[in-house]
């Protein structure tokens, strides 16, 4: 009896996996959208970091690819309750992009092609916690998953990992983004189950 009932729940490699509260495990990669998928041409693509003093740091697609890259393998937790483990990405650490940026700002507003925004404390983008990614699972990042480039900040719910990322504005004051102004939690820590305002 024990032999038969074993195996009804997930695959063997899922056993003993610890997920954040309220999450379930998925093996596909659901696509949630709040608008049409932007088509961004690589020859006009750019990524910018604007500081609180009005300085702009700018990278073209070619310049981004020429920066030293990393290949993080991370777990993803979506606020809609699915988690996907061990996803592999390639991209540039925000530590590299912030190297020559002088700032005392505490907050960051990430903005995307297509108009999406999301906010988080600047320190959550640093110290090996965030990347501008352009490959997923060994392939160039598909537009449906945020390509050509997507912010990856996997320790927060996935809506903070802005698809089609275009730039980051460094701010002295917190500026809530798209979902953060529509009822979702301002910070979004999956391990503290910070889904909605007031959680």
């Amino acid at each position, binding site marked *: 009896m024990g032999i038969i009932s074993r195996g009804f729940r997930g695959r063997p490699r899922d056993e003993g996996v610890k997920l954040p509260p309220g999450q379930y495990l998925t093996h596909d990669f659901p*696509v*949630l*959208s*709040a*608008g*049409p*998928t932007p088509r961004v041409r690589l020859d006009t693509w750019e990524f910018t970091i604007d500081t609180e003093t009005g300085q702009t740091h700018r990278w073209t697609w070619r310049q981004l690819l020429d920066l030293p890259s990393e290949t993080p393998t991370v777990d993803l937790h979506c*606020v*809609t309750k699915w988690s996907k483990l061990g996803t592999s990405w390639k991209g540039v650490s925000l530590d590299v992009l912030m190297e020559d940026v002088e700032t005392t700002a505490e907050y960051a507003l990430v903005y995307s092609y297509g*108009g999406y925004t999301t906010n988080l404390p600047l320190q959550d983008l640093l110290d090996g916690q965030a990347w501008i990614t352009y490959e997923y699972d060994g392939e160039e990042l*598909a*537009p*449906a998953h945020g390509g050509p480039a997507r912010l990856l900040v996997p320790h927060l719910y996935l*809506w903070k990992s802005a698809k089609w990322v275009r730039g980051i504005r460094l701010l002295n004051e917190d500026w809530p983004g798209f*979902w953060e*102004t*529509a*009822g*979702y939690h301002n910070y979004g820590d999956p391990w503290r189950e910070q*889904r*909605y*305002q007031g959680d």
Partner: protein
Amino acid sequence: MTASIEDAYQDGNALAGPLREIFAVDMTAAEGRCASCGLTGPLASLRVYGPEPGWVARCPGCEEVLLRLVRGPQAAWLDLRGIVNLRISLPAEAEAAGA
């Protein structure tokens, strides 16, 4: 990558159920004016994405966000800032009062 993913919106009639939970009348017939481009039409004519993480209704003319509705376990958040106003057809006041 395919057009079906790219344009995976529904028409605004998808909002009928979620808005019925909040308003006393069917809101999909309410006429709204886009704050961005001025286009006027019923909510049913909007391009609606969702339901998760939330409903997002966009103007069919300029793609700006007109309405957002997030349903949490104990509350709903409704953002209408993309709409100048909504014209909601109602019965005449005397009629409504039963006179």
